[in-house]
């Protein structure tokens, strides 16, 4: 992996919940403008690691970290790190679509508005642009004032992606974004991610190994809080070095 392309450099990074060690001494780089997948069985710490990348773990009072997580060579866990700016640049899409109980328009305009953009024409442009990028514009352009919660599950998830895209993030973190969706909506989201990686770096946690194999360039396999193997998705799925990885991807446990 080419060092200078690394957007995130995670160094000897551990995450604790109180006395429980959820992520153990992980060292990994995340390359810009690629899709990196994190796979592993339930409770292996993959979501915890993902949520550390934009410090969403801060919401859990007992969580604390050791080691370094560098974003653009700056430690995001430095005591003076600007979490708000970090989350603007590193957005997140959750497992269950979670639009606000507002209109489609207001959902997408939320981020720009809290950042002080007031001009209607400017907001209109941002909203349209984000919805186009999230491949939702054609479906919702006539119902921008309807509730975001009236959309279908797959549309809601794309609305959430549009809401994140409205901030012009460099990175989007996806926490099992399709596990609550039907196969067609899942395929739509996967196509969308393939398209988005041209402009946004993507890290995706998934339960679905086929999904990781289909869309990601790199895959990391985690087990019991440890990063067991990291590498090219093609290599990991065809020729895993570690026995545990092989057993997991061949479905012998999980």
């Amino acid at each position, binding site marked *: 992996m080419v060092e200078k392309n690394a957007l995130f450099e995670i160094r000897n990074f551990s995450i604790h919940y109180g006395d429980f060690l959820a992520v153990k001494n992980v060292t990994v780089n995340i390359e810009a403008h690629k899709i990196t997948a994190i796979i592993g069985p339930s409770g292996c710490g993959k979501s915890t690691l993902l949520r550390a990348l934009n410090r969403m773990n801060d919401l859990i009072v007992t969580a604390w970290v050791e080691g370094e997580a560098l974003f653009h060579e700056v430690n995001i866990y430095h005591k003076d790190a600007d979490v*708000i700016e970090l989350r603007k640049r590193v957005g997140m899409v*959750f497992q269950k679509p979670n639009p606000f*109980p507002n209109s489609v328009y207001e959902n997408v305009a939320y981020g720009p*508005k*809290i950042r002080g953009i007031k001009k209607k024409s400017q907001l209109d442009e941002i909203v349209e642009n984000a919805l186009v990028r999230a491949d939702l514009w054609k479906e919702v352009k006539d119902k921008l004032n309807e509730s975001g919660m*009236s959309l279908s599950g797959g549309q809601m998830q794309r609305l959430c992606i549009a809401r994140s895209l409205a901030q012009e993030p460099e990175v989007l973190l996806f926490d099992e974004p399709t596990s609550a969706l039907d196969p067609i909506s899942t395929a739509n989201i996967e196509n969308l991610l393939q398209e988005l990686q041209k402009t946004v770096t993507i890290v995706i946690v998934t339960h679905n190994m086929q999904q990781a194999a289909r869309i990601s360039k790199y895959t990391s396999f985690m087990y019991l809080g440890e990063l067991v193997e990291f590498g090219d998705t093609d290599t990991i799925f065809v020729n895993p070095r570690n026995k545990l990885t092989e057993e997991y991807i061949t479905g012998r446990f999980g």
Partner: protein
Amino acid sequence: MSADREKQDTFDLIRKKRIDLKQGFFLNLMRTMGFTGAFILLAILFFVAYNGIHILSWEFITQPPVDAMTKGGIFPVIIGTILLTFFCMLVVIPIGVTTAIFLAEYSKPGVLLKMVMMSIYTLAGVPSVVFGLFGLAVFVVAFNFGMSLLAGSLTLAITVLPYIISTSEESLKAVPYSFKEASLACGATKWQTIRKVIVPTAMPGILTGAILGTAKVAGETAPIMFTAAAFFTPGVPRSLLEPVMALPYHIYVLATAGTHIDETRPIQYGTALTLIVLVLGMNLLGIILRSRQRKKRSW
């Protein structure tokens, strides 16, 4: 063999019937108990309405009392209650909602939070006459507001404060965690999240609590009896520092302290009926709002 079988079936059926009888007895017992509550309410409503309905008229609610309150209407009394509850809510909603936001969003588990919570629960259990005496000592005497609309509204405010805090806190806590996550992941600060997402989402619930709280306050007698309520005022108050007449206190006055108790009896029932209609109306409004927002809620 088939005869045996039949016998067996009959036997089962009889046993089942006995169980049904026993169950039926207890079911009907519980049903009766349940209806007792409803019956008491209906009896009170019927009693008051039967005795008070014939005096209700446009004049009754728009004219002041005359001839030592034996004739005329109760206009200043109604206005007094409306003013007391209005100013009470003006004071209590900001304090209650702010406290609830602190409790639901900012407070960390610990001694301080436990103390605050315990104080609120205890406050909710304090008899209302104690609030009345407190209002007398603090607002009327120490702050020198005198027996006044202001002192009464403030006393009512602290009476209903625990209720407003707990209903607001419940509404805030009912906002899904995922909304909060979504907002923070958009790069919003905690305060922006509270202001733009959590409070607006909880607002219908907070308002419903406030309306039901208003209904509670409108019927309270003890907190206003030493702090605001006047035996008689010629008209509506012109400043916050004047005493007011109020529906619950007026009923008390007419029934116990007047000089013409028998002659004012119809007015007593009329006043009680007006108060009940006002309070039930507000409760009904609160309940309708709550069920409508529950239906609208899609998370």
